[in-house]
């Protein structure tokens, strides 16, 4: 049974700063024809198919479409749309909307559609963190003596317990959201898949495997292979974004340097990843090799070097992203939501406080007290980032990756099945010929 929700389009529109006129769309198909990720096949013509779903109110079909996560907003559709319907912005808003629908607590809904909620949440988290610091920390230990021993200020065990506690809650939320997303996608996919393979149904009626999408996803060899492909190609290479931007560049012959965006995104990603690696290595070293007295290491310490380089990459990337959002210089960031800004702001502040903290270790002219206070700020902004992660812009990391993973898996599976069918057909024909 198909559920129709006439409010869908109105709802999606609240997830953009702009009242884009997607109602004007008369389904000419121009956006699909020019889209670099659109493919041949049933319901693979995006963005038009998705716009149609939204206009009609087919909420579940929309939520069950994995292809929207392939789009990296090159904006070719908007630029060539004969009706100024802004399909690009529609796709962006739909992704935000879908994220808040997948998310189980409902916080994402508030954060993405209400600009004040984000700011209020930031404030509340800040105050609570400060309160926790007052309860568990020892501000009296702040002194101008060197070396700076930050764990004198907040006991390490407190940081670790709070950190792990928050992480567990968030992982649970993310996990449930992802399961939600998977449930919706597989439901829609099941019907499409079967429609697309009528022959398969006729020739292999008794094969129950074919009718369950679980078999498809949990075909382990395929999925592991595809997971590796996604991680290498899509996450660390941002391959699809590069392809889209290159194609857009080639097609439109624009002066605008849109590869800039790809580099910017990679810098943030690699910077963030590098900092994560440095943190984890540090933890592992502390726990297995014994901690270094006072936590002081020289600048040339390998983990420290990884941290500094990653920090620089992150800061450069975030600054570039912030500037282009502020100037609206790139087509895709003309309409920034508050939660976009909150994400960038948190990253920027974490990077900045991290740098000041590192500098205060090694540069003696920086007062040691400043180092302590900056550390407090650093921790608070990390808490902000982590707590808002499952709900805000950060969430695209796993939703997009997961959708890509499913997409890759489905593609591989379809390919395999098509080959199987071909072989089977050939066999049957051979048998007929022999008879």
């Amino acid at each position: 049974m198909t559920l129709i929700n006439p409010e869908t389009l109105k709802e999606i529109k609240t997830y953009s700063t702009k009242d884009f006129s997607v109602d004007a769309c008369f389904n000419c198909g121009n956006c699909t024809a020019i889209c670099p990720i659109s493919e041949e096949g049933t319901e693979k013509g995006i963005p038009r198919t998705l716009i149609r779903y939204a206009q009609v109110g087919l909420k579940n079909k929309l939520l069950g479409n994995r292809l929207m996560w392939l789009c990296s907003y090159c904006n070719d559709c908007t630029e060539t749309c004969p009706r100024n319907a802004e399909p690009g912005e529609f796709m962006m808003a739909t992704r935000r909307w879908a994220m808040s629908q997948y998310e189980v607590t409902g916080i994402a809904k508030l954060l993405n559609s209400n600009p004040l909620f984000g700011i209020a949440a930031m404030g509340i988290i800040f105050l609570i963190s400060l309160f926790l610091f007052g309860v568990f920390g020892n501000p009296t230990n702040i002194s101008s003596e060197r070396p700076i021993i930050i764990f004198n200020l907040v006991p390490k065990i407190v940081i670790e317990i709070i950190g792990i506690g928050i992480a567990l809650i968030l992982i649970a939320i993310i996990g449930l959201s992802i399961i939600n997303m998977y449930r919706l996608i597989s439901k829609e996919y099941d019907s499409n898949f079967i429609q697309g393979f009528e022959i398969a149904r006729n020739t292999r009626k008794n094969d129950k495997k074919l009718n369950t999408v679980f078999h498809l996803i949990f075909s382990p060899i395929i999925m592991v292979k595809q997971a590796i492909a996604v991680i290498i190609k899509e996450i660390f290479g941002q391959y699809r974004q590069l392809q889209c931007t290159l194609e857009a560049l080639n097609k439109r012959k624009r002066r605008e340097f849109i590869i800039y965006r790809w580099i910017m995104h990679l810098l943030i990603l690699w910077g963030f990843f590098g900092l994560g690696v440095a943190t984890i290595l540090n933890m592992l070293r502390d726990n297995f090799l014994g901690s270094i007295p006072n936590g002081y290491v020289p600048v040339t310490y390998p983990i420290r070097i990884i941290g500094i380089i990653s920090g620089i990459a992150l800061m450069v990337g975030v600054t570039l992203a912030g500037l282009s959002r502020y100037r609206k210089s790139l087509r895709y960031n003309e309409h920034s939501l508050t939660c976009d800004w909150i994400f960038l702001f948190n990253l920027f502040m974490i990077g900045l406080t991290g740098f000041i903290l590192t500098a205060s270790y090694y540069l003696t002219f920086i007062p040691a007290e400043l180092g302590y206070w900056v550390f407090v700020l650093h921790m608070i902004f990390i808490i902000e980032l982590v707590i808002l992660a499952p709900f805000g812009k950060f969430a695209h990391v796993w939703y997009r990756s997961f959708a890509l993973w499913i997409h890759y898996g489905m593609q591989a599976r379809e390919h395999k099945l098509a080959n199987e069918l071909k072989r089977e057909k050939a066999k049957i024909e051979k048998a007929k010929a022999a008879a």
Partner: protein
Amino acid sequence: METYDSIVIGAGIAGIQAALDLADQGYKILLVDKEPSIGGKMIQLSKVFPTLDCASCITTPKMSSAAHHENITVWTYCEVTNYHENESGSFQVNLIKKARLVNENKCIGCRQCEFACPVEVPSEFEMALGARKAIYIPFQTAIPQIALLDLENCIACGTCHRVCPADAIDYLQQDQNVEIEAESVILATGYELTPLGEKAEWGGGKYLNVISSLAAERLLAPNGPYLGVRRPSDNQIPMNIAYVHCAGSRDASVDRTYCSRICCMYTIKQAMLIMGSLPIVGVTCYYMDIRAFGKGYEQFYQNAKAMGVEFVKGKVGEIRENPKTHNLILSIENIGDSGGKIEVEYELVVLSLGLTQGSCPTGNFPVKQDKDGFIQSPKLKLDPVITSMEGIIAAGTALGPKDIVDTIVEGSAAAIKTSNYLKARQKESASILSLGSIPKIDNVETSNSEE
């Protein structure tokens, strides 16, 4: 100074119709056109919808009767530069007669100069698919049959001067400024096609085998440049042809949101003509909607479908060229069928271009224009040919996109409106003459308010 009852600016089918209707009533008309021949765009067409009459067979008699009418004076290669209004309300119009470098009174139209001229350049009339000489008569049925010399491409070899039997070549001829007086003005300045290369994704003007619809008309015309439908890149018969509807109209991305009305119908007509002359060729039309708006048009569309023309809903997003074969690959969404994006290869692509304002739609008269450049009709519903200025009437595509039927109707409508206006003026001047002039009282209101 010569005086006329009306000056008709633009000698396309609207202007010719208006001039003929007025001249038949006994008014003296001056018909001017900026091109070296009258006939406008219609004379370039192959056939017209929905009757499939031969365009030049039905235009040429009209052109000819306008040219030979005792009450019509035709000036070609001539533009209005400025005007001022007389006290009596008539228009004093300054025109520039551009130099043809050929003496109009001596030239007998024998085309000896054209045959002898060694310079070949792309022909405007053939939409650059064919060639013309540097000294030329614009096309076979041009009126007047007087040559003109294109100074930009002339190599000054003097051949034309040597071969001319009438000694008509005049290299020293200058542009000539003329002033005339006219009681009224009819603007029939027509349209231009939207630019071929406007949408960069379609590669119009870049790929040889992406041509405009008017070029396709020339390919289909019996007196066309290739004497048949051939594609420009290799002069071969294209085995499949795609039409891109709504190219340059109803498209906000090129800032032209209005419907050009005629493109659907001429596309259907061209597709039918291709199916008629080359039955093995496949013709596919990619459309957003088919707007068959006029009398007999829907039936025309159904006939085309029955003939085997394929109509596919879906706007063409992008056209790429195969550099080896010069075939074109179209990206479209397969809306009606299995769905998704597909790529289809064609040997020739015709962009069904829309209509936009002419190069000088108002003929340098300060009538109000719409946002899209066409002349404004203040009384659009009940008096569509009236403009914002008294004594100036407009007709045809200068007012907005329309087909030939409507253009001719408007030409006649403009004639009767002008005739009414002229009659009223005659009466008015007669009554003024009998009463004597009435003194003007201008400052009554202002003096009252001061007190």
